[in-house]
């Protein structure tokens, strides 16, 4: 498929075949969705019915109805995998855009499904609970269950209206009343279909020839059909500007079949209605297929051009991306070959761009920093102190924390730095002791403000960002120390003391060297 620079252009097979597969798999999924929803509605409704009429209604027929919910819902869920897969490949941009714009509701589906399925299936399989508890769980489960198609229809509605995406993204779905009306009718049409199909299913499979149950379910379905006719007309009204001949043909077939069904339901002699309903229900597959065809034609008209335009744009980008494919692959191979485990690799990649390959503080990014990176070749400190610097960073400077590496790695890094720059060895004594008396006086009067009288940071110094180092644990080579005292440390409060006599500055170097203490384990 050689589409490595843009997988979104790769398709497993032709769009036409995918649409066909989408139609077939969606019809199968939707059939079980309708049966599942209808089953839950009927079970909860007839439970309430039998409870209100004092359990007279054939010893809780709803138990038998609800028991099958587990099977229908399991099939509805797994059968949904294929249509979701195909629509995300065939019309990825419209579908995924709409889902993301309605993300909180879309993610809420997980909670809704678990609540609905756990409530209803626990009831369906552990029936003898107290009626009040039964009613609470039944209503809770049913409410959650009925909310699920609301989310799916909303996502599909939005996917089919790409011209509304920007406005919905900015102001929410409520900003498009036309869209909301269309969604509401679409959603109610699903609920009505669920009532009808669920009724038909249980009419054949759960009544066990009982006249009483047939009678109740016939009435149920008559109400459902009338509801569907009203909602269907309103739904069609919200789509008038989108109708094509194919859509009109499909809707006409479906509507005609529905009319025959209504006619049979209302034909004179209501006594024989049950028998007539048995015939009428054979029309249901015709209605389902024709209405789903109309749905798919509508969807195609609305989203195929959007997806095609985006794919065309991606095709033009293809040429732009091609030259970078090799660069990207080289970068990936280099990443795979670099194992951040030893001190050398970590130093070279995570430290050297500031501190320099040679540790002299002149890495390629050094010039960008206001506080220059420390010259590591001049650092002479307790290893435990260095570990803390590396692990925690220095607030107020560019030195970040490196606990992104575990302790063993940081220890190996320090080991490497010590081998190369001797950072964890004691600072050597300066060759010239300088003017010790003057140095003590200057230190006590000036330096101690931040560094503390004994080299441990003063309270004032500790509040500086960056704070000065603890001179009892962190030192520098004499030349470097002399340079810092003379020129200051850029970007910090450490100012230049070039005005002091050279002997005093050397005296300070000696004094500070004298404060340095080896750590608990040597240095």
């Amino acid at each position, binding site marked *: 498929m050689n589409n*490595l620079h843009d997988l979104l252009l790769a398709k497993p097979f032709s769009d036409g075949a995918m649409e066909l597969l989408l139609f077939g798999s969606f019809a199968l999924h939707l059939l079980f969705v309708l049966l599942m929803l209808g089953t839950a509605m009927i079970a909860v409704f007839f439970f309430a019915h039998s409870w209100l009429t004092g359990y007279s209604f054939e010893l809780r027929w709803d138990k038998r109805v609800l028991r099958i919910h587990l099977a229908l819902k399991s099939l509805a869920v797994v059968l949904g*995998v294929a249509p979701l897969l195909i629509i995300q*490949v065939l019309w990825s941009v419209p579908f995924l855009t709409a*889902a993301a714009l309605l993300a909180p509701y879309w993610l809420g589906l997980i909670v809704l499904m678990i609540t609905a399925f756990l409530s209803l299936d626990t009831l369906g399989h552990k029936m003898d609970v107290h009626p009040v508890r039964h009613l609470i769980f039944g209503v809770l489960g049913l409410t959650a269950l009925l909310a699920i198609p609301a989310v799916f229809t909303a996502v599909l509605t939005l996917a089919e209206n790409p011209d509304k995406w920007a406005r919905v*993204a900015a102001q929410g779905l409520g900003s498009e009343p036309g869209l909301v009306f269309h969604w509401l009718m679409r959603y109610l049409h699903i609920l009505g279909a669920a009532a009808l199909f669920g009724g038909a299913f249980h009419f054949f499979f759960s009544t066990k020839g009982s006249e009483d149950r047939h009678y109740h379910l016939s009435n149920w379905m008559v109400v459902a059909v009338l509801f569907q006719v009203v909602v269907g007309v309103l739904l069609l009204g919200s789509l008038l500007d989108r109708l094509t001949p194919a859509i009109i043909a499909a809707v006409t077939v479906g509507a005609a079949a529905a009319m025959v069904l209504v006619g049979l339901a209302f034909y004179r002699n209501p006594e024989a209605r049950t028998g007539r309903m048995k015939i009428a229900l054979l029309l249901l597959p015709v209605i389902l297929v024709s209405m789903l065809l109309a749905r798919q034609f509508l969807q195609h008209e609305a989203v195929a051009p959007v997806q095609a335009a985006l794919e065309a744009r991606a095709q033009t980008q293809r040429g732009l991306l091609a030259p970078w494919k090799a660069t990207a692959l080289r970068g990936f191979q280099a990443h795979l070959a670099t194992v951040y*485990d030893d001190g050398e690799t970590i130093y070279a990649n995570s430290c050297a761009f500031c501190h320099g390959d040679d540790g002299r503080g002149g890495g390629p990014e050094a010039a960008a920093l206001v506080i220059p990176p420390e010259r590591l070749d001049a650092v002479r400190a307790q290893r435990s102190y260095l570990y803390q610097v590396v692990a925690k960073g220095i*607030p107020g400077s560019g030195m970040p924390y490196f606990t992104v590496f575990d302790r063993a790695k940081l220890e190996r890094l320090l080991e490497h730095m010590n081998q190369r720059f001797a950072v964890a060895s004691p600072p050597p004594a300066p060759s010239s002791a300088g003017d010790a008396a003057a140095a003590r006086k200057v230190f006590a009067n000036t330096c101690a403000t931040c560094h503390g009288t004994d080299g441990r940071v003063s309270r004032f110094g500790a509040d500086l960002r*960056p704070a000065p180092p603890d001179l009892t644990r962190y030192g520098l080579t004499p030349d470097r120390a002399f340079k810092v005292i003379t020129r200051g440390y850029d970007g910090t409060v450490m100012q230049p003391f070039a005005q002091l006599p050279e002997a005093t500055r050397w005296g300070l170097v000696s004094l500070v060297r004298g404060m340095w203490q080896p750590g608990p384990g040597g240095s």
Partner: protein
Amino acid sequence: MLFPTFYVPGLGQGMSIALVAVVHVLISHGFAIGLLTLIVLMEHLALRRGDGELEDLARHLLKPAVIIVTAVGAVTGAGIWFTVSVLAPQGIGSMLRVFFWPWFIEWIAFTLEVLVLLPYYFLWERMRAKHAGLHLALGWSYVAIAFCSAFLISGILGFMLTPDGWVQNQRLVSAFFNPTFWPQLALRFLGGLALGGLFCLGMVLFSRKPAAELRGQVMRLLGGWVLAAGALAALAAWFYFSAVPRTYSVHKVFAVLTSRLSQEAWLLWLGNILAVVVVAAAAAAALARLKLAARLLIIPALILAVGLVIEFERSREFIRGPYLMPGYMYANQVPLARGELLKRRGMLSQAAWYAAQPPGLEPRAPAGHALFMANCGVCHSIGGLNDIRDRLAGRTQPSVGVMVRRTEQMVPFMPAFSGTPDEALTMAAYLYEISGQRRSIDAAPPIGREGGRHE
């Protein structure tokens, strides 16, 4: 930014997916594979021995298993997909195209799984008298199909860590049978069996149903089962981690302990050893039919086993670091080649969607914020988990700029910044400004003050 991406406030992307995924793994592995295999095995033994009580027990265990598998297991499985559809639309859009056929076959496998499980559950009582053998065959068919769906998923999950040959040849076979495929399949299957044994043990130990004699027999069976499957799963885990490239596996300690605890690696080893010891002890107690000891140990054993599952999934997801699809796409959904292009052409000019500015965030810097969300939002948040303001607390403005330019090199599990140098500056300035609010708190105390040894 071809798609709008939803960023979960507070929890962030990774944790949101993880929450759904961990529940799914526990149920799909522990219940749908492990517990159901055990139930079929018990039925098998019951039929062979003519032990009606054992068959009753198996049937008694099946009801909650079926309800949980179909109501929570299947839903969280789809839920992972729902979640990544809005959290990583470009990522899932690309993955589905590489794995269209395995995914499609998975649909058939799932459907068959349900089609076999339903009669196995609903018709047990009815088939018991005349068709007991056929019922058992249904059970074993279920186990075989469940294994097939684990097989299909393992190929996809393994690819996300070790795509290997696919990067060069883009062939599905290379992508699917990748280096971690077989060890991961073995680990998931055996781990599922062990986990299922623990779940089953817990149910049997605290159920009032079985008589003492039967309970003892089943405890013995389950104890041995957990020990054997657990030992084999540990072996598979070892094979798995040896098949992971070292570039990735060296981040395992950090993956689990995060920067908060990364310096205390011993915690990880202690936790793992503790988990293995407690699980083994619970299994041994069951093997020895020590009811009280097994009851005391099974709860901590289950909690620690769940911990092991979380540890494995977290490691697997984290160590692949900067990539969502190694060799093709960064974790932030930017394909590698596109990232190179964006570095020259700019990210914002190419974006179809800007991430929306969260309310109440000062200063309002839509460009900086959009760049942050697109580049970093998959792992970092503002005000939630892995808060970028904590990560950058105490840094100077130019050093934030340096880090943005060097992410990939400095921290091996961060992707590169995909944008022009100007955009890097825009984002760095924005991040410096928002994290500046944290400077007075300072995540780390200045060095030299610890131990209170200051004036």
